[in-house]
């Protein structure tokens, strides 16, 4: 039943693998980041074998994440180009959250929120890697004046927190919009789902047939 011919192919296997690699890496990164973020979270360092290992692993996990996300970036780059409809979609996103999607413009494969998330993540990832390199005491910090390192630390912390917030939202929306997780797990969605959430995309790939 999983590979039901009737369902539409939404994400290919490589895309899904890439997404979940990014997801898993991000979780590790976020947890190890939180250890350094505030003493409240320091006990989380036991997940990585103590404070020292957390400090050692966090930057390397960050680099891994940048690589995985890099490949996702090239995969979804064209798909996520914002259109006027997307901005309008976003303008109505408050109503959508209240369950009323009537006045929403028809979204393509990815709606305005998903595209915006993509670009926000790109921004966050770039800021994080740049400030991360600057803060990486073992290999790079000696290249930078202390004022830059301090600024980078603030940027890194703020952006990191921001990204965690974004991902919390992303995860919730995936849960909230039923079967989205299934789409990312199995790559297929029911036609009804497609028509409901991504009418323009649905029409486009079903050639106008029902």
């Amino acid at each position, binding site marked *: 039943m999983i590979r039901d011919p*009737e369902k539409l192919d939404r994400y290919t296997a490589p895309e899904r693998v890439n997404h979940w690699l990014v997801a898993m890496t991000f979780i590790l990164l976020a947890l190890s980041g*939180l*250890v*350094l*973020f*505030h*003493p*409240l*979270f*320091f006990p989380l*360092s036991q997940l990585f074998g*103590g*404070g*020292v290992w*957390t*400090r050692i692993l966090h930057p390397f996990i960050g680099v891994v994440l940048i690589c995985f996300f890099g490949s996702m970036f090239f995969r979804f780059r064209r798909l996520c180009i914002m259109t006027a409809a997307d901005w309008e979609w976003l303008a109505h996103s408050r109503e*959508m*959250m*209240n*369950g009323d999607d009537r006045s929403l413009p028809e979204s393509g494969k990815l709606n305005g929120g998903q595209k915006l998330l993509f670009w926000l993540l790109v921004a966050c990832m770039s800021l994080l890697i740049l400030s991360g390199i600057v*803060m990486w*005491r*073992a290999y790079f*910090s000696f290249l930078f004046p*202390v*004022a830059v*390192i*301090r*600024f980078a*630390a*603030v940027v890194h*912390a*703020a952006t990191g*927190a921001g990204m*965690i*917030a974004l991902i*919390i*939202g992303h995860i*919730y929306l995936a*849960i*909230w*919009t*039923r*079967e989205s997780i299934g789409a990312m797990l199995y790559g297929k969605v*029911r*036609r*009804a*789902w497609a*028509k*409901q*959430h991504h009418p323009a995309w649905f029409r486009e790939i079903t050639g106008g047939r*029902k």
Partner: protein
Amino acid sequence: MALQSLDIIRRSATTTPSPGQRRTMEVAKLIDVTKCIGCKACQVACMEWNDTRDAIGQNHGVLDNPMDLTENSWTVMRYAEVETDRGLEWLIRKDGCMHCGNPGCLKACPAPGAIVQYKNGIVDFQEENCIGCGYCIAGCPFNIPRVSRKDGKVYKCTLCSDRVTVGLEPACVKTCPTGAIVFGSKDDMLHHAEERITDLRERGFAKAGVYDPQGVDGTHVIYVLHHADKPEIYNGLPKDPTIGPMVEIWKGVTKPLASLALGALAAGAFFHYVTKGPNEVSEEIEKEFKDDTRS
């Protein structure tokens, strides 16, 4: 029962207070640059007492050696040949941890208990708890801590906490041939500094003064300078050092609030789900396709 050897005021990355009922004397080390002959005896005494040895480097065209603080050299002499109105002056300053009243390193440190500030004013690194992230280097207004390449821990002058604990003076204080470095209660040191300043003013140093920057709530290593109005001529002694806005933001109240916000966001999402219910495919679209599946 936790054992400790000195009364603690603050511990890094610790949001709960340490046992602090006792009131003990606040100590201070006074470095009188006007009596210092730049002989580096303090550098040797420091390395000898703490059993560290720096590498035998090379001569870089100046008398400074080693050129900077390292994980093995916790104090170094910095030489500055300065032309002032009095003619050529050779200003030599013993660089090292200032043991701030409000330590930037401790504020920046994410590892619980890696940096402690004792009630007598000493700011000490607890290398066992140090995770080697180097945040303290960013937090320090005087650029003092150094990471060891060998064990990834951070090192700096401890004001000889192991000697002070048993009632001795630090090693550099004891060895200083000209008595440029003196140690005692902070009040006594400030009084000693006043005496030195009157003598210096008599000798024509109108601007002689104490360097005990309030920007970091005063320090437990204080200088007497010939030219207290221009500390930067002493090889970059900061004019009025503070922890700085960036570190305050970075390590201030924003983080707990941000943590709270993330928690609230997650909770908010959950209650959105509970109140608004899932975003499912509407009935009529389901109906539309139900026929298809049967046929």
